[in-house]
């Protein structure tokens, strides 16, 4: 996966480069708008990470120019501008997603994956990890061929984890994607929901699948 990072803060660039390479992405970085726009038009990328405030040419202009040239590479805005109107402006200009600084790195990776996945289609309705099998069409889940009794939301949560198996998912992302909670909330509702799901899918089995990553979130994977 080839990603273009357009961002002027050196420290941010360094840690993003490091982190993204660790996550098996190939990353090119541009430190100002002009270079960034040039690189975006010259090469083909799978995704562009774009800062709004840039020297020479700002992020709004870059995305407008790209879309005018019919370059449809997915764009994810990274910015400190956090008002809803900035968000709406970005999305209207053709951005695909929006992350506000400071964001957690795992959140960024999760969003990159979901953007890259957008173009792929799930041919199968059967999702699997180890001996856990979920049939999204029939709304049924099995562990080692025993049916699991899940509530509707628990099922949605499990499907969300399965579609992103191996990715660390933050509480914010889970709340947003599963419950449509788009605002900051102090409650530990997500923790309790995950804990209850874990009791149903992991408790009676020796191989644990749903793990806590302290300080970051949760991940469904074979260990």
């Amino acid at each position, binding site marked *: 996966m080839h990603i273009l990072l357009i961002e002027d803060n050196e420290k941010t660039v360094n840690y993003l480069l490091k982190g993204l390479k660790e996550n098996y992405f190939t990353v090119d970085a541009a430190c100002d708008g002009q270079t960034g726009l040039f690189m975006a038009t010259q090469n083909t990328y799978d995704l562009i990470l774009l800062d709004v405030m840039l020297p020479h040419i700002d992020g709004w202009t870059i995305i407008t120019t790209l879309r005018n040239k019919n370059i449809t590479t997915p764009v994810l805005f990274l910015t400190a501008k*956090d*008002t*809803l*109107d900035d968000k709406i402006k970005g999305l209207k200009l053709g951005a695909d997603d929006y992350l506000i600084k*400071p964001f*957690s790195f795992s959140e960024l990776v999760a969003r990159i994956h979901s953007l890259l996945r957008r173009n792929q289609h799930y041919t199968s309705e059967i999702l699997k990890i180890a001996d856990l099998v979920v049939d999204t069409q029939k709304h049924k889940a099995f562990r080692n061929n025993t049916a699991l009794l899940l*509530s509707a*939301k628990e099922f949605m949560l499990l499907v969300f984890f399965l579609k992103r198996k191996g990715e660390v998912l933050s509480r914010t992302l889970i*709340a947003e994607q599963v*419950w*449509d*909670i*788009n*605002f*900051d*909330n*102090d*409650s*530990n*509702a997500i923790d*309790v*929901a995950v*804990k*209850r799901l874990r009791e149903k899918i992991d408790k009676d089995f020796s191989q644990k699948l749903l793990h806590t990553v*302290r*300080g*970051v979130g949760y991940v469904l994977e074979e260990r």
Partner: protein
Amino acid sequence: MFWKNVKRVKSLSIVTTLALLYSLSTIGIFIVIALFLYPDFSKITQAINKKPVSTYGNQLDSEKKIKICPTEINRLCIKCYKKTIVVLLASSIASIFLGYLVARNGLARMREFENKIENIHSDLLHERINIQDWPKELRNVGEKFNMMLDRIQISFDQLSQFSSDIAHEFRTPLHNLTGLTELALVKEKTSEEYKQTLTLCLEEYHHLSKLIENLLFLARSNHGQMILHKTSFSVKKEILKLFDYYQALAEEKEIELLCQGDATLVADLILFKRMIANLLTNSLHYTSSTKKEIKIEVTSDEHDIFIAIHDQGIGIDSQHLSKLFDRFYRVDTSLNTGSGGLGLGLAIVKSIIDLHKGKIRVGSQINRGTTVYITLPT
């Protein structure tokens, strides 16, 4: 006695004082003129009156007087004219001078006012202008000015309270971060220990960025920088969606979530959900387990929608109720870390209510529960 009257005159409107002054001086002028001219007038009238008398009475005596009469009357008349002109001139000069003094005296308050304005600084915001003996025209301005100072002082106090709160709230996580990092660097540790340190640091970073996000929200909403994206929606439907989010937590605590009634509301949906979510978080947090319920009742009339959130939690002592919506106000100060919150949840609720021009009120009984009453215009 005398001073009291002077004060009353001073506090009269300048226009009234001037009108009073001019009418009094007009009367004065008439009186002066009358006094001055009285001797001459009486002579003239005497002279005129004696003329017909003389025709019937003593011929010789009257003839003698008639001889003097025409010139004497003329002379007296001219004298009268002169006197009138002099008196009028003198009195008009005097009244102009008095008018000038009255106006000057009245407007002297203006200069006092100027000085006051010039000397206003952030550390003298508690000072007010004494407007008691001011003329009426200026008293209104002074009153409004004092009211403005009141408002400025309130927001200034809030702001300085706020910044000191911020400094305080930021200090704790920063202190934790410094300590944790120092500790990790002082001595070699196992990678597991480093990992633990980093995890703890990460939690503090999350705490800080949440704090900033919430404070920015409050700052924006209080300074009118928040744009509301209003839509029309069913209150019950949105509340049930939120219940869905809290379901696991509520079941875990054996608390039943109930919603009665419905209404259609036009408001910013995300803000509405955030407000209800904050209140539900509190209700759930302060309700201990064992078969309790949290009930939301929605009613409406033609103007307003009423939402009441009842819980059967630990309740709030009445002394805290008025400060409940203040930033960083915590009922139990020792609970600082236990609740996990930032102490901003209810301040955010209040600001969302204000943005929608609604009202909020809290009623509570210790150990019986708390009810939050919300009124929102449709």
